[in-house]
């Protein structure tokens, strides 16, 4: 009797958790550990002969100029997009928490770009930068629109930043709105009676009260930007001269175009460590906020 109860419990355990565990083990856990193993080998992905190279791939990474450049690009791009998309998202949220009549329509419009996948977004903007901007430049004569947007390293960088802001600001706006509507009205009114200006209220009441949302939004933007791939692939393909190649795109190119699977997995491992540090920081900060709330 006792043993049948035990086996019943195990059958339930397998029925409830088995399918998810098996799929996860094969698709995520196994490749994760295999990646660690392969990163010590010279391997082209096709042939069975793996040549052990020890830490060779890792030393190669730090001499790989393309990888280092992609890392520098990704860092600069992350700083720019995290600051700007949060700024835009926050300003939009402030606007939409005022009693403007069109706020529901506006919220829909600002959020809309976010539901379109990065690959399609990049293609849409490729057309706008190449053809749309020049048409606007001809009509208005504004020099800004006559620049060779995707053909020059500096403007291509800002091009990718602009598209990323356009796609993510609405999402961050939604997070800020849900925090802003919970700021107590009586606190704002009391401050107004005491003669606080709008700027003072924003700095000393609103911002401190919505800090939890700021933390979430900052780190969401951080982890999206760091892993950026789709938008860059379709907008610039990493060009011109690899100047907009992100780390994710560099890994993809190394493995699937240069067929250096061993080196690719080593790069992927380095990438994982960096992203893990960033994302753990995100989880840790979000959790520390839960305790206070």
């Amino acid at each position, binding site marked *: 009797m006792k043993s049948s109860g035990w086996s019943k419990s195990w059958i339930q355990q397998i029925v409830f958790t088995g399918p*998810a565990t098996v799929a996860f083990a094969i*698709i*995520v856990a196994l490749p994760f550990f295999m990646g660690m193993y392969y990163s010590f080998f010279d391997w082209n992905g096709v042939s069975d002969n793996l040549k052990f190279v020890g830490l060779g791939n890792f030393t190669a990474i730090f001499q790989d100029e393309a990888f280092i450049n992609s890392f520098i690009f990704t860092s600069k791009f992350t700083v720019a997009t995290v600051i700007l998309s949060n700024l835009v998202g926050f300003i939009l949220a402030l606007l939409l928490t005022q009693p403007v009549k069109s706020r529901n329509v506006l919220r829909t419009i600002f959020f*809309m770009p976010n539901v379109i*996948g990065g*690959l399609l977004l990049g293609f849409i903007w490729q057309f706008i930068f190449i053809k*749309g901007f020049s048409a606007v430049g001809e009509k208005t004569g504004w020099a800004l629109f006559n620049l060779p947007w995707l053909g020059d390293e500096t403007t291509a960088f800002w091009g990718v930043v602009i598209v990323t802001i356009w796609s993510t600001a609405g999402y961050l706006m939604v997070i800020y709105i849900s925090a802003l509507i919970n700021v107590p009205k009586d606190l704002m009114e009391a401050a107004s009676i005491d003669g606080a200006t709008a700027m003072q209220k924003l700095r000393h009441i609103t911002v401190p009260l919505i800090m939890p949302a700021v933390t979430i939004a900052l780190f969401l933007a951080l982890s999206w930007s760091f892993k950026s791939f*789709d938008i860059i692939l379709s907008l610039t393909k990493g060009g011109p001269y690899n100047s907009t190649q992100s780390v994710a795109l560099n*890994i993809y190119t190394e493995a699937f175009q240069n067929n250096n699977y061993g080196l690719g997995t080593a790069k992927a491992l380095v990438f994982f460590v960096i992203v893990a540090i960033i994302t753990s920081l995100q989880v840790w900060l979000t959790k520390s906020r839960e305790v206070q709330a």
Partner: protein
Amino acid sequence: MEQSRYRGTTLILEIIGVLLALVFLVPFYFLVSNAFKKYGDILLDSAALPNPWTVDNFTRAWDIMSFPASFMNSLIITVTTIIGLAVISSMAAYRMVRHSSKYNNLLFAVFVAAMVIPFQSIMIPLITVAANLNLTNSLSGLWFAYMGFGSSMTIFLYHGFVKSIPLEIEESATVDGCSPYGVFWRIVFPLLKPMTVTIIILNSLWVWNDFLLPDLMLGEGQRTIPLSTYAFFGQYTKQWDLALAGLVMGVLPILIFFLMLQRHIIEGITAGSVKG
């Protein structure tokens, strides 16, 4: 009072808001208006409205992209994935909460920890594993891969929600002779509905828009919408008339989905990101 306050600063804010919205919509204007133009007209002036209008681009892109097939592939993989993930993840999360043994706590910790692994850092060995298990070149193989990748976050979200469900209802059902499976499917799963809606939305947007995983797993013959758009763009570089029509068709289904369910989508995304 409200009225007089509205007329002042709020009117200015309203105007600013509408102007900003127009800036956000400009890319859509360029996309749609040029998709209806002849190639020469696009080169001549891409900012003008189409004159004359043509739907020729759409009929040609529809055939070249084999749009109905890509659309069906995208739809099948998205629908089966969201169903599969909701089923396996809610069951796993339920078991982990209600039988929090050492083993189950460790299992949950592993699922959560894996959320930090970026796709690009395991995609290379994944392709080797998938090829050896015959998971490549088929929608069912792709579906299985989504089960593995999606389960972490889906279990994490369900786990938090199951904890908030009172145990008493389940206990009384068990006393009345209901099996553990009956308790879950008849009592617990319906109570998880708000979280299921959030999860369906988050997973639909992810799977529908995903490019890299289907790109690596599916063969030439099978394409989802992002894949066929990518191939189409590569083939017809600078043939803007065809490319833009293809893009409009690619964007339309997800935009319609969003506009129809926008309240749920925005709420679901807020709930998912604040808890995640």
